[in-house]
C-alpha cells in the first residue's frame, strides 16, 4: 500500500490566510475557520502588543464600557439628575398599586445600582488599599464614608447603632441629594423617595455578604426638614456569624 496519506484538498489560498486578511474590523471568531481563528499566534500576538486597543465591534471604541474605570468621574448637573429622578418617581408611581408598592419599586431600582456600585468603588479605591470588609461596623463605615462620597460628593451625616435591637443600625443623611426638591404631599403619608438610596445600600450590603433590609424614614429636625434615616436591619445569620467569629 502506498504510504501516501489522503490529505483533504486545501486550496492554496486558505493555507495562506494571515491575520491581516481575516476581517477588516479586527479580531473575532471566524466560523469558517473554527476555534483557531481566535488563537493567539506569533502574528496575532505582535499585533496585540503593538496595538493598544482593539475594537471587537466596529462602534465600540467610544462606548462607556471601554473607558477607564479608575478615571475620576465628572460632576453632573444636579438639575438634570433631579428631573431624571422626578421622572423615575413618576414612572414608578404610575405603575404602582400603592405607597408601599411605590417604595418597593424605587428600592428595587436602587438595589441593582448598589450591587454594581460596590464593585466600582472598590476598584476605584485601588487594590493596594481596598480589602474585603468582614465586620458589620467596617462595611457600614465604608458605605457611610467612601461609597457615600463617591455617590453624593459628601459623607453621610451620622452612623448610629440602635440601642434596643442588636441587629439595627442607622445611617443618617440631613439632605439626601436625590430628594432635595421633592415635597411629599400629606395624602402620601410617610412615603420617602429616598427609598431609592435605601435600595442602593441594600444592594451593596447584600452583595458584600451582609444580608439586610434597608428602609428610608423621614425624621425631620427644625433646621433639616428633609433629614432621612436609613434603617438597616441585618439578617439573623449575619449577627450570628459576627458573634461566632469575633467574640
Amino acid at each position, binding site marked *: 500500500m502506498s504510504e501516501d496519506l489522503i490529505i483533504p484538498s486545501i486550496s492554496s489560498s486558505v493555507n495562506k490566510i494571515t491575520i491581516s486578511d481575516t476581517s477588516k474590523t479586527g479580531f473575532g471568531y471566524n466560523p469558517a475557520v473554527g476555534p483557531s481563528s481566535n488563537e493567539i499566534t506569533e502574528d496575532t500576538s505582535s499585533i496585540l502588543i503593538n496595538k493598544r486597543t482593539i475594537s471587537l465591534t466596529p462602534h465600540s471604541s467610544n462606548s462607556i464600557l471601554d473607558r477607564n474605570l479608575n478615571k475620576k468621574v465628572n460632576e453632573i448637573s444636579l438639575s438634570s439628575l433631579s428631573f431624571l*429622578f422626578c421622572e423615575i418617581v413618576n414612572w414608578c408611581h404610575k405603575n404602582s398599586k400603592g405607597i408601599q408598592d411605590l417604595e418597593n419599586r424605587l428600592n428595587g431600582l436602587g438595589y441593582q445600582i448598589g450591587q454594581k456600585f460596590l464593585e466600582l468603588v472598590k476598584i476605584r479605591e485601588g487594590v493596594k488599599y481596598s480589602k474585603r470588609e468582614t465586620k458589620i461596623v467596617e462595611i457600614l463605615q465604608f458605605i457611610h464614608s467612601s461609597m457615600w462620597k463617591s455617590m453624593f460628593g459628601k459623607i453621610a451625616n451620622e452612623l448610629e447603632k440602635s440601642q434596643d435591637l442588636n441587629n439595627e443600625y442607622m445611617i443618617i443623611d440631613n439632605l439626601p441629594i436625590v430628594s432635595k426638591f*421633592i415635597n411629599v404631599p400629606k395624602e402620601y403619608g410617610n412615603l420617602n423617595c429616598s427609598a431609592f438610596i435605601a435600595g442602593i445600600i441594600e444592594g451593596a450590603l447584600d452583595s458584600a455578604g451582609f444580608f439586610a433590609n434597608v428602609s428610608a424614614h423621614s425624621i425631620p429636625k427644625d433646621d433639616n426638614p428633609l433629614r432621612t434615616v436609613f434603617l438597616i436591619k441585618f439578617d439573623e445569620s449575619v449577627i450570628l456569624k459576627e458573634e461566632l467569629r469575633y467574640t
Partner: protein
Amino acid sequence: MIVYSVYILNKAGGLVYQNDINPGLNRLSANDYLVLAGTLHGVHAITSRFSHSMKIEQNEINMNNNSNILSTGKSLNPNTNRTGLQSIETDHFNLYIQQTLTGIKFIIITSPLKTTPMSRGQLNNELDLVNYLFRQIYILYGDYVSKDPFQASDMPIKNQLFDTKLRELVNQ
C-alpha cells in the same frame, strides 16, 4: 420695602399659588382672589395689544432669547413682560407683574415707598429689587415646583418646602 404677597398664575390665568407672607393687606374672600387673578390676566392680555406690532415683537423677543441662550450659554432676563401691564402703584401697595417665557405670571405685592414723590433713583432701586426678587422666586419655582414628581403642571401648588424657601427669601 416689605413684600406682602406673592401670587402665581398659570398660563390660562388661574390662580395656582397664593402666599400672603407678611400681613399688611386686608384678606379678601377666596373667590375675590380668583377674580383678581383672572382680571389681571385679562388686563395684561388686552394692554399688551396696545402696542401695534406686539405679535411680531413677542416672536422676535423669543427668537432672540433662544438664539442668545444657544450662542452664549447664558440665560437672559427671564421676564418676558415687555408690552403688557407691568405694575400698579397706589398709596397703600405696589403690585408688579412679571411673566416667564412659558406664560406663567408671578405677581408680587409690596408696600409703597415712604416718600410720595419718588425720585428717579428710588424708583429704579425699587424696580431692581423687584426684578431680583422675581429672579430668585423663579429659581425657587424651577427647583421646588417643577422638579417635584407630585406636582402636575398648571395645577394648584401645595408645597411646604416651596413655602418655607419663599418665606426665607422674602424675609432675608
